């Protein structure tokens, strides 16, 4: 059990009260968040790469995560500045985050139609635009409520400070969404091949693509709402999984991505705590450090056709 306080393994079975609180109220919620968020982002990445037939597509690169973060902050802003009360942020943040994710993906799909690079460039553009607005809102929130460091953490992408209620909210949205995607994985395969093949196979490509995009938006939004942007897990995990399976069959890639994505997030969480002893680094710094080289390798591969 690694963190700012290191809990010896021999104390795990019968921990003293202080360790018990750390384990039950801090470490286990973080652990569960890592599993759910890693799975969510990986499934969203695997589905996006298949739907857009673009190896670089994932929530972070397509700007979906930035849209979700802006939406989450707007939800937070509304809940703390209106009469509703900040306790409703657990509902408002995911709802607005989902709206933000869908707006971002709609913009990217509108302006990024010219091929794989075009989609990525549109994603970068949308990300920069939303990140600028996020900075403005964040600065405003910190000005009016100086004792609100959680918002800063949200920008960084971290599971620190997550609680059981937030884990429960994530699980309630993520589990049925992932279950539907797994059951429909063969439809994703058809869309991955070509739209004509999908249509002749009885799948309406426009409608079906819209459903799956909505579901990836949902998985991204629920993750970003509570942990902020965690980059490149959605990019790297599906590619590693395909490499392991030597197949892009989504009926196997998606379930295995859940396991590998969760594992990557758990390791990234540990690394984020031990890289500088006593300092908890944002997880996204760790995932991006390992994810960007993969992105560059993929860019080189795609660039060479």
């Amino acid at each position, binding site marked *: 059990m690694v963190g700012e306080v290191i809990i010896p393994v021999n104390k795990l079975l019968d921990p003293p009260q202080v360790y018990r609180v750390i384990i039950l109220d801090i470490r286990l919620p973080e652990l569960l968040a890592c599993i759910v968020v890693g799975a969510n982002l990986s499934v969203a990445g695997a589905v996006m790469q298949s739907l857009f037939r673009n190896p670089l597509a994932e929530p972070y690169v397509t700007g979906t995560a930035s849209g979700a973060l802006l939406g989450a902050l707007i939800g937070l802003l509304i809940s703390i500045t209106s009469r509703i009360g900040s306790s409703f942020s657990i509902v408002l943040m995911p709802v607005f985050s989902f709206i933000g994710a869908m707006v971002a993906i709609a913009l990217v799909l509108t302006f990024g139609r010219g091929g794989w690079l075009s989609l990525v460039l549109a994603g970068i553009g949308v990300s920069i635009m939303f990140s600028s607005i996020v900075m403005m809102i964040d600065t405003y929130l910190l000005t009016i409520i100086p004792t609100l460091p959680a918002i800063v953490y949200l920008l960084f992408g971290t599971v620190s400070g997550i609680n059981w209620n937030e884990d429960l909210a994530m699980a309630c949205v993520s589990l049925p969404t992932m279950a539907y995607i797994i059951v429909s994985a063969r439809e994703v395969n058809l869309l991955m091949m*070509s739209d004509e*093949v999908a*249509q*002749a196979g*009885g799948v*309406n490509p426009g409608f079906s693509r819209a459903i799956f995009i909505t579901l990836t938006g949902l998985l991204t939004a629920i993750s970003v709402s509570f942990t902020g942007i965690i980059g490149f897990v959605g990019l790297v995990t599906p590619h590693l999984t395909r490499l392991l399976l030597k197949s892009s*069959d989504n009926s196997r890639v998606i379930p295995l991505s859940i396991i590998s994505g969760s594992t990557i997030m758990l390791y990234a969480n540990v690394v984020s705590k031990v890289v500088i002893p006593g300092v908890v680094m944002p997880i996204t710094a760790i995932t991006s450090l390992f994810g960007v080289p993969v992105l560059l390798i993929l860019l080189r591969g795609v660039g060479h056709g």
Partner: protein
Amino acid sequence: MGSYAVRFVNASIGYDEPIIRDIMLNIPRPGLTTILGPNGSGKTTMLRALIKYARIFGGYVYVDGKSVDSIPIRDLPRYMSYSPAEINPQVILTVRDIMRSARGGDGWVSDEDINDTLRFLGIQDLVDRMFNELSTGQKRLVLIARALVSKAPLLLLDEPTSNLDLGNKYRVISILRKIVDERGITVITAGHDIDLALSSDWVVAIKDGELLAMGSPDDIINEDTLSKLYGINIRVLRLNGHRLIYVE
């Protein structure tokens, strides 16, 4: 069941605007029909109209006596299966996975049907090979097998012999004949292959979105029709029952 597998009745078909205009055409069943025409003439658009992927601006298109407008997309596999010229090259699937992605009228196809179909086409040894590592000829056969495994009465194949060497081309043509002759299925292909047209039961000649002619290979593969179709002077010599086609 009528005697026509497909009927185009004053049909205008396209995407943003019509590419095929006011076409009248009846394709009999069973049999192998090849749609010939220059690039951009609307051959693929005609196939796409059948799978509802192209828009019907006017007139009617019937499959098995039923207007395609009235067939819900989810029911299309009951009526037909479709094989594109190629699929997304990033797809890394085994031949078995490619076959498993086919749907018939009763849902996803079974492993037993997959094995039977691959055996029927003589490509059962490819079942565990990666699709992206196959030769172009083998890929075409697998895509034809994928169309066939759904057990639909109508197979639509877009350019099934393009980019194939002579040996593979004749292998594909003989397999299409086998499918039609032994299974009584209607196969409609679109492409540029005169040899495939010569092996077909019917040939449809399309030019600039209009029907130029339809008939048996003897009716269509002649100097007059081919010259009109492609806008160049084409000569057809007959030698020991075979045709030698060249451009003057």
